[in-house]
Every structure is written in C-alpha cells, then in structure tokens.
C-alpha cells in the first residue's frame, strides 16, 4: 500500500469523461442536462480556461453547435441522456454522412433500471441506425481513456462517435490516473468544400457510398482496438461482456475466459470468431437489448445469452450469478415487510406544491412533463395524469382538448385540460407546442411552473435564468414574452405560494374559451439555499386534526402518535400549510438554541 500519487484521483465516470475531454484538447463542449449525464458538462466547467462550455436549450441544438465547431476544426463533445439523443437524432443521422473535421464525440448516458428516466432505451441501436461507431467504458478510468480514443477514431475516420455510459458508470467513482492536456493544435478554421459539407441529393449520394466504405474500415479497426481484448482463462466457458457487465463478470468468474468489448459497433467480428473458436461454451452478457447476441448468432456462432441473462433492468453480480453457474451470496438479515414506503417527493417549501394544491380544487385532466413536478403524480397530490416526453405536456393538452371538441357524444361535459411544464422544459421544447395551441386555435390552459433553474437534474442554468453554464450574466428569456410572441392573449403571472391568487387565476383560465398561459414563478429553495420564511409549528390546542395540511404531501408535516407536527429541521416556511389550516393552528415557530 502506498499513499496516493498526485496523478491519481477519485473521479466519477462523468468527471472522468470531462477530464478526458480536457486532456484530449477539446475546446468546445455542449449539452443539455439529463440524469445520469449531467455532471460531464458541470465538471468540464472546471476547465473553462481551455474549453468553451454551454448548456444549450436542448440536445438537438447542442449537437448542431458542436457540429459547427467540429467543422471549424475543433475537438468537441456533446452530452445528454439517452432520451436526449432522440431529440438530437436528426442532426446525428446526417452528420454521419457529412463526417467530421475536428473530433466529435456524443456522450450519451443510458439508465438501465430507470433510476431517473421514463424509459430504458438502449443507445447502442443508434450506432447501427446512424451508422456511427460506439464505445462503451466499464469504469471511470476507461471513461477517460475511451473518450480520448473516441476523439481519435472520430478524426481518423471523419465520423461522429458515440460514447455510451450507463448510470453505474456515470455515477460510480473510481481511481483514475490523470494525464496532461494535449499541446494546442492550430485550428484550421472552416475550409469550404460543398461536395463534403452540403448534402443536397447530388452530394449526398456519393456521401452515402463513402459512409459504407468508412464503416468497413471501422469494422476492421475494431478488431485491433485496445478497447476490445481477449483475456484467456478456463476455456470451458467463454463470456463476451461489454460495458459495466464486464466488471460483474470479472467479479463473479475471475477464472473464466472473457472477450471484453469496449468498441461495441461496428462489431469486432474477427475477435468474436477467434474467441468463440477457443472456448467450449459461449455466453453473451450485455445489459438491455440482445444486440451483440443477435449479431454473434448472425455470424453462425452458437451462443447463450438472453436465455440466462435478464434483459430488463440493470445487471449486477447478484443477477448474473445463476447465469454464470455461481451461487449468489444470500442475505442473512431479513427485511421487514411492513415498512412504510418512502418514494421521492416534492421537497419542503417546493413552489410546485402550491400549484398542485390549487389544481386540486378543480376537476381537470393534467398533462404533465419531465421535471421535479412529475412527482405531483403521487398521493396525496395526484395531480398529474399523463407524462410523455420533454415538451409533451403542452402539445398533449392541445390534442386532448381538440379530441374533446370533436367527440360525438356531447351529452356530458368533459373535464378541461391543463398542461404543466417547467421553465427549462419550456425552453427545451415547449415553445413549439404553445405556438401550435395559438396557431391552431386551441383552448388548453398551460401552466409553466418556473422555479428559475433546471431543478431535477441538480440545478443547471438555462436561457431563463440570466446566467450561462460558465456563470456569466446574460439575457433572461421569459416565458411570458414567448407566450406573447406565439400569439397567446391571456397570460398571467402568479406567486405559487399564494394559494388564493393561484386558484382564482386557474379558475379564470378554465372558465375561458381561449388558451391561457399561467406562469407560476418562484425560485427553487433548494437552489437559493434560503428558506421562503421562518419555520412553522402546529399549535396542538388549536389543531382539530382535519388533516388539510397533510394533503399537501409536504415531508416537513408529519403525522405520528396521533399528532400533526411540523418538522422544523425540514420546514422551509412556505406558509402553504398555514393557508390551508382553517383553525389558525399553524404559525411561525420560535427559533432554536443554535439560531440567532
């Protein structure tokens, strides 16, 4: 055991990717926040002297900005979560035809197990779909090394490259050996070449041919890449493992022969054949879809895989033990089955709670969106009825309202539709939906819960906050201005902590035949790190235990031992409980000993 050297650091996979970008001489980094990818760009900000970093309004813009920088010769990275790549798919598909000048790596973080996502899509499909190579690191050290390797592949073969991480790579920390930054390379600037950069059909057809030639060259290179390697061991069982699955396999079966695949597509066919020929039984271990397994079979090689390895949710050594013929360690301590569930909830003093509480007074359908406010689906609030995708809360509200207009059975009145999106989501992809409502004469009510930050992913700036990722002051885009520009005539701004104002505004909007845009604006207290007001306390003599305050679903209000109490350690003083208490039993608490 020796003490750590200065060049060794504990980095998460995301921090390691950012470090790799810096070491590799990247000068432009863009992205949109999304768990589990967010910390890549946040960490890149530490290298702001060398790297221009920006939160773009959405992933499509981020990739287009990076494409421009790359065609000007810069090494660039773009970061997003898996569903963000759907948004950025359009530029990716054609950038693959055009190719790159400076290296361009799209860092995409998948979320097997859906820890913080609405679906479990497997980004590896995009590699084949878009005809671009994809690398997949299995720990922090590889995250850094593969980012650099991906940039080299991108420049050598003039192709964008995908770097697929997963939650367990992005959010695991491990020891990483640090390197220095590559010496600066003179930037050539954009060199005009319409045959290469302008894919009008006349040019796109030869590009299409060149793309296939490039893929053949990439497939050959994958066989000799340091990202793919055979580790010979006991030949009775050979395991092909990729990404984080390699670590689980190695932990469980240190004796087995393993083909570790880090360059996932185009597949390293020669290596696969060599490995398969050298083992008696072949098992494919990959997380999510059986992409590698199906390919191995297509080579005429018999193998096992999905018949033994789960394809839903994330893998672990526990879940793989049986497939590898190992006994999983068993729990010796039993879990109590009657423990109360503790799902994630809106924080104490969250401004969204005021809007959900106000909405609780109306019989409406609420189309929700992606953000903290999606937590409004859970009891006791239960004020979200659908969620689809970023921006979908606005457009779906319009669609439901139009469907209701055209229904054959007019004998009963259907509930009105309210769409809810957050501020960052509005700027990401809500504006076009709002424009659609105004343009196509919709009548939905849209509430933008504007807490002045991208909150769910851990507080990132966006065009409405007045600051850039680099912390510089900038323009402050406002939801109301966009609403007016779209042609929405009824626009109201409310304080979400003022229940009466919020309720009356929503009532007015629902009684109208026209579209309304309500902006509920108050900053996220977790971000400002300030209480909204002093902590509250329940006067037990006045409390009639009507539980109106408990219906706010505030984690600071506790029901225990037949008593309702405010946990003053948690309370943010938002006053919503005080406003809903008809007995006047809730008021400011006295300060504790450590407070001034």
């Amino acid at each position, binding site marked *: *055991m020796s*003490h*750590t050297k200065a060049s060794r650091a*504990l980095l*998460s996979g995301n921090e390691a990717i950012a470090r790799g970008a810096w070491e590799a001489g990247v000068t432009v980094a863009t992205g949109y926040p999304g*768990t589990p990818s*967010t*910390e890549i760009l946040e960490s890149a900000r530490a290298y702001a002297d060398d790297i221009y970093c920006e939160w773009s309004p959405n992933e499509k813009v981020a990739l287009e900005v990076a494409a421009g920088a790359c065609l000007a010769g810069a090494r660039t990275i773009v970061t997003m979560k898996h569903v963000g790549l759907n948004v950025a798919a359009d530029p990716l598909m054609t950038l693959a035809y055009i190719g790159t000048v400076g290296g361009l790596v799209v860092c995409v973080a998948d979320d097997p197990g859906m*820890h*913080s996502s609405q679906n479990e899509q497997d980004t590896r499909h995009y590699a084949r779909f878009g005809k671009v190579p994809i690398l997949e690191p299995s*720990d922090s050290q590889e995250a850094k090394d593969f980012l650099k390797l991906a940039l080299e592949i991108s420049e050598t073969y003039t192709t964008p490259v995908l770097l697929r991480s997963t939650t367990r790579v992005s*959010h*695991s*920390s*491990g*020891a990483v050996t640090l390197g220095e930054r590559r010496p600066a390379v003179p930037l050539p600037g954009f060199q005009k070449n319409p045959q290469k950069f302008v894919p009008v059909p006349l040019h796109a057809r030869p590009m299409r041919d060149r793309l296939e030639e490039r893929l053949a060259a990439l497939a050959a290179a994958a066989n000799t890449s340091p990202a793919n390697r055979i580790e010979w061991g006991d030949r009775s069982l050979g395991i092909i493992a990729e990404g984080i699955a390699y*670590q*689980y396999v*190695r*932990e469980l079966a*240190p004796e087995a022969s393993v083909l570790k695949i880090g360059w996932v597509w185009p597949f390293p066919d020669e290596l696969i054949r060599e490995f398969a020929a050298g083992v008696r039984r072949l098992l494919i271990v990959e997380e999510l879809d059986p992409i590698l397994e199906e390919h191995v079979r297509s080579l005429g090689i018999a193998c096992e895989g999905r018949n033994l390895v789960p394809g839903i949710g994330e893998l*672990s*050594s*526990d879940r793989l033990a049986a497939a590898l013929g190992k006994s*999983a*360690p068993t*729990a*010796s*301590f039993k*879990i*109590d089955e*009657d*423990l*109360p*569930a*503790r*799902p*994630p*909830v809106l*924080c104490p003093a969250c401004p969204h709670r005021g809007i959900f509480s106000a909405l609780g007074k109306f019989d409406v359908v609420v189309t929700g969106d992606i953000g903290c406010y*999606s*937590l409004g689906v*859970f*009891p*006791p609030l239960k004020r979200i009825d659908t969620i689809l995708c970023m921006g979908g809360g606005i457009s779906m509200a319009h669609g439901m309202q139009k469907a209701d207009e055209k229904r054959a059975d007019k004998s009963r009145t259907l509930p009105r539709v309210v769409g809810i999106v957050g501020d960052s989501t509005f700027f990401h992809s809500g504006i076009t939906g709002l424009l659609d409502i105004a343009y196509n004469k919709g009548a939905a009510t849209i509430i933008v819960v504007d807490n002045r930050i991208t909150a*769910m992913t*851990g507080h990132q700036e966006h065009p409405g906050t007045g600051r850039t990722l680099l912390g510089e002051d900038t323009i402050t885009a406002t939801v109301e201005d966009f609403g007016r520009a779209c042609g929405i005539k009824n626009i109201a701004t409310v304080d979400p902590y003022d229940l009466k104002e919020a309720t009356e505004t929503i009532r007015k909007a629902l009684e109208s035949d026209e579209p309304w845009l309500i902006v509920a604006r108050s900053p996220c207290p977790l971000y400002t790190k300030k209480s909204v007001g002093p902590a509250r306390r329940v006067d037990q003599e006045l409390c009639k235990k009507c*539980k109106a305050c*408990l219906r706010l*679903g505030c*984690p600071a*209000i*506790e*029901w*225990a*031992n037949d008593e309702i109490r405010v946990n003053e*350690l*948690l309370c943010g003083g938002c006053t919503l409980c005080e406003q809903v208490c008809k007995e006047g039993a809730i008021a400011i608490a006295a300060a504790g*000993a*450590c407070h001034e």
Partner: protein
Amino acid sequence: MSKTTSIVMVGVGGQGILLATQIAARAALIMGFDVKTNEVHGMAQRGGSVMAQIRFGEKVYSPLVPEGTANVLASLERIEALRFASFLAPDGVAVVSRQAIIPVTVSSGQAKYPTDAEDRLRKTFRRLAYIDAVGVAERLCDTRVANVIILGAMSAALDLPVECWKEAIAQCVKPRFKDVNVSAFEEGKRLAVSV
C-alpha cells in the same frame, strides 16, 4: 472478492449521503486502495429512500455490493437500516442514527411508521451501534454534520487510519466547515467505541 471491503450507506434524500460516500471513498483511496462507489443522483434524491455504496481493496471490479456481503451498513435514518438490512454480511456492523423521518406515505395515511423501531433494530442486527447523531450534531450547533457523525461511528468498524479520514474530510468540505466536520467525525467514533 473476499478481500474487498463493502460499505452500504442509506438514508433519506437530502441527508448528505453523497458527501459521506465521497469522504469514505477518499479515505480508502488515500490509504492506497482501489476504490469504487456507486451513488444516487436525480429524481431519487428528492426525499426518497436512498442508498450509496463504497467498495475498496487491492482490486475492485463491480461498484455494486452484493446482498449479504456488506461489512458495514450505515443508516442516517432509523427504519432505513431495516429496509436495507439484506445487504449486511452475517458478521457485519450496523451503524444507525436514531433520527426518524416520517415518510409522506405515513402522513397521508397510507402506511404506519413502526413505533418499535429500536426493538426491531436490536432483534435484526447482531452488531449494532444506535446513535443519537442529530442530538450530537445539535450540540455542535450544525445539524448538517449528522452524516459525518455516522461516518465517525462507522470508521470504528473499518480498518482505515484516522489520518486518512481527516485528510478525506479536508478534501471534501469547504475549509470553513472542516473543523466542525472533524469534530463530528471524532464524536461519532467515540460514540461507537463506547457502544
């Protein structure tokens, strides 16, 4: 695999599990071990049950602690230790804060919070340090350091020198919070030894 030390830290989102995880991982790294952690970010952070894990040893492959193998289960909330009990090895140590945080599912009448948590903990865990971390933190006039008090208590069951822990704390907290966190760590360590 048997040489890998595994720690599971659990609690409620917002209690400072991430910081505690980083400190423990750095302490192991400073000692010269290979280290891996896994952490929880994003949606799960918001007041829900959270778990983070730290593994260290000569060579660590998986960042995930298999069930039944953790050397230490540290819980910042009393019933969360029961929820994640299955991770602890038969001879493992449970370090549990007495703090009770009532879930919204209880307050909204969907479930009940156990009134006999301490009994259950004592019945469940053979080796238990049950600690009033919030009470100690209040005496230190900073309730936020309850997580580091639990770290201190947990350190008594781990083979890492106290200097590594202190250096790790210095690396992970802002300079002006270093002293209170070091005091919190020492208080926790003292409490666990006296249990």
